[in-house]
């Protein structure tokens, strides 16, 4: 631990400064109440009136993003009013026009695209969850396929090659459609059946399961090549030493070869992860609410062409974070070198 701190002292200091800065800015940002108390007297009156009435006329949207927050109030009815406020560093700024309006929109869009306040299957959380599950299952499947491909049994090797050829030779989007529409169509089931319900949530969850399956099947083909080349890069002497010690093929693979291959796979797996992260945007085609779908919906419903900029930033931040994580994993696996 001590050695770790010493080795990464500069990075740790930078990370600590960033975290402290976020916490301080977070504490300093105005509270929800402060933000809402800045509304015009007319709006105040309507809010108060709403409190004693079952029919709400004011819709309040409040988004808080770590260091900055945003409130939007709009009324329905004959006399439509709308007011927007941004809170930052203890101050409240009206955001009905000018640069502050853009800032407010960005906060709102980012908040929605991150999937804040929704369950795990929304926004950036969906993207990360889908990508992580895909890589995990893809690697498992890829390992099986790779072992098949390098197997001396011709049948296994042919099956693996055919699988890889098929999944690398067809578009992921069509594969997603096949898993989501064609397979249930042929076999007479629906993905929502998995959740013993036919409500919207079950449909949504079912679509998520279908997406994970389609992506993992596809990723397995790519991971197979990653695993295969890593295994084949292991010195033949390792197989011979294990054999001379009486270890079976399975023991040699699981205890000697694959553990050594893992480190060599990491850069390629990291690459695959980033590819899947971006491919995951294809789930808009089956109505899953990932970053891409949400940004496109915002574009359509609010006509805001700026929404794609925070979308790009979110993807970049996720890529950077996972790049960092993979880097650390690679270092951890390199201890013996």
């Amino acid at each position, binding site marked *: 631990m001590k050695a770790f701190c010493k080795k990464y002292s500069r990075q740790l200091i930078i990370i600590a400064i960033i975290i402290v800065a976020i916490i301080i800015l977070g504490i300093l940002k105005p509270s929800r109440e402060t933000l809402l108390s800045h509304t015009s007297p007319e709006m105040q009156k309507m809010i108060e009136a709403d409190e004693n009435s079952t029919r709400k006329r004011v819709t309040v949207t409040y988004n808080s993003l770590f260091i900055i927050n945003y409130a939007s109030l709009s009324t329905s009815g004959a006399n439509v009013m709308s007011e927007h406020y941004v809170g930052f560093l203890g101050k409240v700024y009206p955001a009905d026009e000018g640069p502050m309006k853009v800032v407010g929109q960005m906060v709102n869009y980012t908040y929605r695209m991150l999937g804040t306040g929704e369950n795990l299957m929304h926004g950036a959380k969906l993207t990360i969850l889908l990508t992580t599950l895909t890589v995990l299952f893809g690697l498992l499947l890829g390992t099986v396929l790779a072992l098949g491909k390098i197997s001396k049994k011709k049948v296994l090797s042919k099956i693996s090659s055919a699988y890889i050829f098929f999944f690398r030779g067809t578009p992921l989007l069509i594969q997603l459609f096949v898993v989501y529409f064609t397979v249930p169509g042929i076999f007479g089931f629906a993905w929502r059946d998995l959740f013993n319900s036919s409500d919207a949530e079950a449909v949504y969850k079912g679509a998520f399961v279908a997406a994970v399956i389609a992506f993992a099947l596809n990723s397995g083909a790519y991971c197979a090549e990653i695993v295969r080349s890593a295994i084949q890069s292991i010195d033949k002497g390792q197989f011979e030493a294990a054999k001379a010690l009486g270890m079976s093929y399975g*023991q040699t693979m699981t205890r000697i070869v694959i553990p050594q291959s893992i480190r060599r796979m990491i850069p390629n797996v990291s690459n695959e992860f980033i590819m899947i992260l971006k491919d995951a945007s294809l789930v808009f085609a089956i109505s899953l609410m990932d970053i891409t779908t949400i940004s496109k919906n915002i574009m359509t419903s609010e006509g805001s062409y700026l929404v794609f900029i925070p979308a790009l930033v979110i993807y970049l931040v996720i890529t950077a974070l996972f790049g960092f994580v993979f880097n650390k994993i690679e270092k951890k696996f390199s201890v013996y070198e």
Partner: protein
Amino acid sequence: MSENYEYILKTEHVSKRFGTLEVLKDISLSVKKGEVICIIGPSGAGKSTFLRSLNQLEKITSGKIFIRDELFLHRENDHTIDRLPREKQQELLLEMGMVFQRFNLFPHKTVLQNVCEAPIVVKKEKKEEAEARARELLDRVGLSDKADEYPSRLSGGQQQRVAIARALAMNPEIMLFDEPTSALDPELVGDVLNVMKELATTGMTMLCVTHEMGFAKEVADRVLFMADGIIAEEGTPGEIFTNPKAERTRNFLNAILEA
């Protein structure tokens, strides 16, 4: 296990072809328990291939291999004619430990883990027992202080001694050494040879492919001179080194001694 056998290891008419290249031609050899045999000869003579075909790292093309007088494998023209059942074969193969020229330690495991890996995984020994024995063996090869290091932190000589300890951990009756000092810096050779000498004095049956003539002279009961896939000459170290009969042996020894 039965001790009533004449030869612990025997080959009859063993041949090995790689494509059209005949690497081993009709090699017959009988080894008694406790014998130390050194195999010398020019490179490309088939020494390593012969050693590797004994513990099945290479499949022989034809010939018979006996272990403890039992017919272990009989092949003709790349077809197996007769062999022991797989389990029995596996059991007998465990009686042969092998040390490689390039050590082939498992780089992702510590020295201690390298030594106790096979006893735990193959022989299903208890972890504590295997580790205790591994520490004894490391002590024997003079590396007890390196137990928790990774192989990459060790010198070549130390790695090779770990490799010997790793092979010994399976309690083999026969040790095969495939040029164990060829990949080492000259100053590291001595430590490895000392371990091998110590092993020879304990009555271990040993087959060593080696270029260390001094070692062969001192330790071997028998020296085989191999050239072009045959055993060109064999005899005691005295016979081979002081009075070689075959012309090829003389040329080889002259070349080595001049160098």
